[in-house]
Each structure stands twice: as structure tokens, then as C-alpha cells.
């Protein structure tokens, strides 16, 4: 075992009673077991298949100071603290999540508060449910966020979860944020986040889930999403990394009953020394289901992009249709991409395809644009933007799609932090 686990084990031994006090029975019921799991397995090394591309130990080694601040929620008929759940959540909490994964185990033992999104049967939530994870504070901080999303039979919802830097009151006005000592400090602080999102989609339920990260180069994020899908249902999960430090996203999907669909889309943009690692596993456990994955990366400077995705078609999951695509654009000679699409099939009547590409900037297109007078930097931006267009186009929720067109372009121009129509930013 490496040294970096030690502080978390010791912290738990000292603080478990405080955590339990601030938490609720359903979370406490699985806490000690998760701790034992973490204690015995420790952090994964790079020899562990699913962690080949991210060095966990180095990220978790520093002492960040673990946050035990409760979650603030904006009143909504669908969002609850787990302790205030309107239904019995013990059949759901930590049932899809897999504590054999050390990050999930660590999150399960340390998170004291969890957020529940519950959509009752046959309810269609018209406007999207937005969750903002504001990263702020005067000191380096480690946060362990936990979400449980339940869509009951026939329910429909769009959920947007964003990781962002500025607190809302100050983000509105540039002058304030410029002057704010709190924000100034937040930008320079290191944040380490673990996040576990469990999704349970009952029969005939439809979920469109977005995770958008727009943080700083000092932020590290480990997000594990577990999705269980019932019969005749559909889930779309969109993972968008606009700006980050080190990010590792895991997404495990279980298609447990017939005639369901899952779509995983990913957009990852890296520059400087950023690191983005997406890891997916789709379990086709029932017949007649469909899965689609499209992950696109643009990596520049010395950034690193990694994608490993597996489609696992279990025995009996006949008539499965599955497609997995990972396309990468290496915009500099020092940027690196690792890609590993995988298929494992135990049924004999399936249609599955997987593929990945890694390419560089199209020199002839660059020359063509420059001959028309478009400066090289602008031409590169246009090409990167065009490459990412496919993923952004597939976003279903229109206002968000429009917003992301703008954001992605700003990101490629290095102007993501500049606000609209602001004189100070020009």
C-alpha cells in the first residue's frame, strides 16, 4: 500500500463519529463497509486496468483539508437532502455504485450529505434541473459530493450539473468579482473533488443528464457515474470538459431490461498541462437494447487526453446494437492521446462496432484558409471548433446547445473567463 491512503484512513478513524452525526442513517448504513473496502484495497495503481492513464496516488497525496460543509439547495419540488427523501431510498443508495472502485469507496465513507433528485411517476419536468457545484473557499479543499437521481416510472427530466469557480452573487458582475478577495483566493486554491452520481431510471423513464466542468488548472476531479436503466427507457449522458486541471470521469451503465437506449457523449478540450481521462463501461444485460458513444477530444500544448471504453454484451443480450466512437485531434506535437475502445461479446445475434481515430490539424485546410487571409491562429480555432461541432450538435436541450457553441469557441480562443459585453474584458 502507498502512503497517500494513510491520511484518509486516519482521518476516518478520527472523524467517522462526526461524519455520522452530520449524516443520515441510510448513508451511515454502508459507511463502515466502504471504509473497510478502501482500507484493504487502497488507491489504484496504474497497473489497475481502469486506472492506466491517471496517476491517482500523486493527486491524493497532498493534505487538502476535507470539507464537511453541508450542501445548500435551492428550493425545488424535485431536489432534496437525502435525509429528507420523500421515498425510501435504501433500495437505491449505494446499490448501483460499486465500492470495489476505491474512489467510490472513499466517497461513500467520507460524504456526509447527499443530494437526491427524485422525479415521481409519470411526471415530466419541463425546465431543466440545474445543480451548480461552486468551488470556493479561502483554503485548499477536498470535497466529496454525492448524488442520487431517481426517475420513477414514466418520468422525464433534464438535469445539468456544473462545476464552476465563482459564487453566483459575484459572477453576475465583473466589477464585483474583480474586487472580491474571496474569488481572488478561490482561483488560486487547489480543489480536489470526488463525486459519485447514481442514476436509477425506472421503466419508460427518460433522462437527459449533463455534466459540465469549467474550473481551473488547479482543480482535480474524480467523478464516477453509475446508471441503471429499466425497460423502454432512455438515458443520455453528456460529459463536457471545457476547462480543468486533472479530470477523471468514469461512467458505468447497466441496461437491465429490454428495449432501452443509452447515449454517452463526451467533449474534452485540453491545453497547457491539462489531463482528461474518460472511462466507460456499458453492460448490455438484456435483449434489444441500444447504446451509442461518441467522445471527441481536442488536445493542445502538452495536455493529455485518454479514453477507454468497453461495451460488454452479456449472454442473453441478443439483438443488441452498440456503437462506440472516439475521435481525437492532436493540435500540437507535444499533446498526447491514449485511446482504447473495447468490445466483449457473449451473445451471438448482435450488431456492435467500435473505433477510434487520432489525427493532426489538416495542413491543406489551414493553407487554404490562410490564402483567403484568415490568420493562422484563427484558422486553427475554426478547425478545432468544427471538429467539436458534432458533439455539441448532438446536445438535445437547445438553450444549452446554443450556450455551449459560444463557450466552446471562447475556450478555443482562450477567452473562456471573459464575460459577455463587458468593457473590462475587452
Amino acid at each position, binding site marked *: 500500500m502507498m502512503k497517500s491512503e494513510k491520511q484518509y484512513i486516519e482521518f476516518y478513524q478520527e472523524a467517522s463519529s462526526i461524519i455520522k452525526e452530520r449524516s443520515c442513517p441510510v448513508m451511515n448504513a454502508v459507511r463502515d463497509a466502504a471504509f473497510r473496502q478502501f482500507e484493504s484495497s487502497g488507491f489504484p495503481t496504474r497497473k489497475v486496468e481502469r486506472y492506466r492513464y491517471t496517476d491517482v496516488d500523486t493527486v491524493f497525496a497532498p493534505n487538502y483539508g476535507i470539507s464537511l460543509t453541508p450542501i445548500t439547495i435551492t428550493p425545488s419540488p424535485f431536489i432534496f437532502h437525502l435525509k429528507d427523501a420523500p421515498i425510501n431510498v435504501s433500495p437505491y443508495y449505494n446499490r448501483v455504485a460499486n465500492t470495489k472502485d476505491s474512489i467510490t469507496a472513499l466517497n461513500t465513507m467520507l460524504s456526509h450529505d447527499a443530494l437526491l433528485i427524485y422525479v415521481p411517476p409519470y411526471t415530466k419536468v419541463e425546465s431543466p434541473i440545474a445543480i451548480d457545484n461552486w468551488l470556493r473557499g479561502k483554503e485548499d479543499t477536498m470535497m466529496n459530493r454525492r448524488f442520487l437521481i431517481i426517475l420513477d416510472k414514466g418520468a422525464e427530466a433534464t438535469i445539468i450539473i456544473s462545476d464552476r469557480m465563482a459564487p453566483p452573487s459575484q459572477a453576475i458582475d465583473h466589477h464585483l468579482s474583480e474586487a472580491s478577495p474571496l474569488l481572488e483566493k478561490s482561483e488560486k486554491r487547489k480543489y480536489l473533488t470526488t463525486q459519485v452520481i447514481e442514476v436509477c431510471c425506472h421503466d419508460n423513464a427518460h433522462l437527459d443528464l449533463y455534466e459540465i466542468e469549467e474550473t481551473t488548472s488547479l482543480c482535480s476531479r474524480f467523478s464516477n457515474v453509475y446508471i441503471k436503466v429499466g425497460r423502454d427507457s432512455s438515458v443520455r449522458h453528456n460529459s463536457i470538459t471545457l476547462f480543468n486541471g486533472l479530470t477523471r470521469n468514469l461512467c458505468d451503465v447497466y441496461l437491465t431490461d429490454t428495449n432501452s437506449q443509452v447515449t454517452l457523449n463526451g467533449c474534452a478540450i485540453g491545453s497547457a498541462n491539462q489531463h482528461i481521462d474518460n472511462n466507460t463501461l456499458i453492460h448490455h444485460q438484456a435483449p434489444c437494447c441500444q447504446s451509442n458513444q461518441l467522445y471527441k477530444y481536442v488536445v493542445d500544448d502538452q495536455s493529455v487526453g485518454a479514453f477507454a471504453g468497453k461495451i460488454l454484451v452479456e449472454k442473453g443480450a441478443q439483438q443488441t446494437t452498440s456503437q462506440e466512437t472516439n475521435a481525437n485531434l492532436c493540435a500540437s506535437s507535444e499533446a498526447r492521446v491514449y485511446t482504447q475502445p473495447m468490445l466483449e461479446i457473449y451473445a451471438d445475434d448482435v450488431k456492435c462496432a467500435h473505433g477510434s481515430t487520432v489525427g493532426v490539424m489538416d495542413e491543406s485546410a489551414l*493553407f487554404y*484558409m490562410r490564402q483567403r487571409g484568415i490568420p493562422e491562429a484563427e484558422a486553427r480555432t475554426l*478547425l478545432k471548433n468544427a471538429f467539436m461541432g458534432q458533439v455539441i450538435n448532438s446536445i438535445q436541450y437547445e438553450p444549452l446547445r446554443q450556450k455551449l457553441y459560444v463557450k466552446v469557441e471562447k475556450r478555443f480562443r482562450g477567452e473562456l473567463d471573459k464575460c459577455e459585453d463587458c468593457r473590462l474584458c475587452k
Partner: protein
Amino acid sequence: MLEIRNLHAQVGDKEILKGIDLTINDGEIHALMGTNGAGKSTLSNVIVGNPNYEVTKGSIIFNGQDLLSMNTEERAHAGIFMSFQAPIEIPGVSMTNFMRAAVNARREAQGKEPLKSTDFLKMMREKRKLVEIDQKLMNRSVNEGFSGGERKRNEIFQMAMLNPTFCILDETDSGLDVDALRIVAEGFNKLRTPGTSALVITHYQRLLDYIRPHFVHVLIDGKIVKTGGPDLAQKIENNGFDWIKEGLMNA
């Protein structure tokens, strides 16, 4: 306008241009003919500044400026335009956005404000009519799914939008049917002002029936070996290049 002196250029280690001398004055149209592989496209690529071509010797002066010290986009801003032999597809970049970026980059280089959206679209509409190009092509990605003829028309459309003073037509006639050739050539003639100069690269007399050159040059093995009037093109059309080559050997 354009003065090329003792120009040598290579691709990789292979020398293609072996001492080109060419002067093109304001308002003149020069046709460049020659055998395959003689260096016609190399010359046009060197003039516009394609980074794949390396100039080893010589100079190009454009309106008093040292062209070889300028990058590709600066040359474009100075007024040089090339109609590509094989226009490039750029998936995901719409014609409209592409043209907007090009037009505004040129304006910025001239110290002008970017065009207002409405003015820009109006300009697109007007110029489109000149080359009879369909609006629906403007919503597509650059050259994606364009037929051969549409691509060439699109090149002339871009020329109309950018208003260059020196144009290179690199085998603009290749792959065009007679009607498309007429539309493209007439479009070019409508756009040309008395001061506009052009270098027209072609294998055939037909294009020169529409775009009348003042001079015709013959490029063989990296050198201009013969220069004449429009009748030289007709003679090549009838007799090929062999008589010129023979003349060179006997000299």
C-alpha cells in the same frame, strides 16, 4: 505589380523552379502553359506562400513589397488570390463563417471595422449572383459535397468577396463542362477592374478564348522558355510542345 527575379524553389530535396523571371504589370493578364510537372503549380504556390515549398534563390516583389518575407495571410491581405486547382473541403466550417472570417481578417489588416452582419449577408447575396452559385451551398461546409463545377465557381465567388488585385487561376478550367467554364470565365471578367492583373495557368486554349491574355509563357523543366502573344497558345493547342522542346535542343 509583380516582379519575379531568378526564382529557384524546391519541394523536399527536389528542385522544381530553376530560375524564373517574370514581370506582370497592372492590368495585364499572363497565361502560363507547359507540360505536366514543369512547375506551373509550384510557381503559383510559391507566390501565395504555401509553406510546403521552399524558395532557395531569387526574389518576388509585389507592389514594392518583398513578398517572400511575408506570410501566407499577409500576402492575401496585400491583394493576392489563388483559385485552387483542387479546392479543399473543410468539414464543419460553413461557407458563411469561412467567408466572414476571411472578409473581416482582410478588413482588420486594412484598419477597418468588421462588417455588420446585415451588410455582410447583402454582399454575399450580390456576389453569389455573379457566379450563379446557389444559396444552399452557402449553408454547407466549405466545398463539402460540392460538384467539381460548384467548387470552381465557389473559388471565383470567393475572389468576388475578397476583391484581390492579383489573381492566380490555377487550372480553373480543369473538370469544367463548357457551360460552367463560360460562367466561371464570365464571372472573372465581370470582377476584373482595369488595374487587376492575373496569372492564368491552363493546358487548353478554350479558357483563353474567354479570358484574353496579353502574354503567353511556356514553362518547361522549371524555366520559362518561350513568351509570346495569344497566338502562341493557339499554336500549342495545334502542335503541342514538342516543337518548342526541339527548338531548345537545337539552340
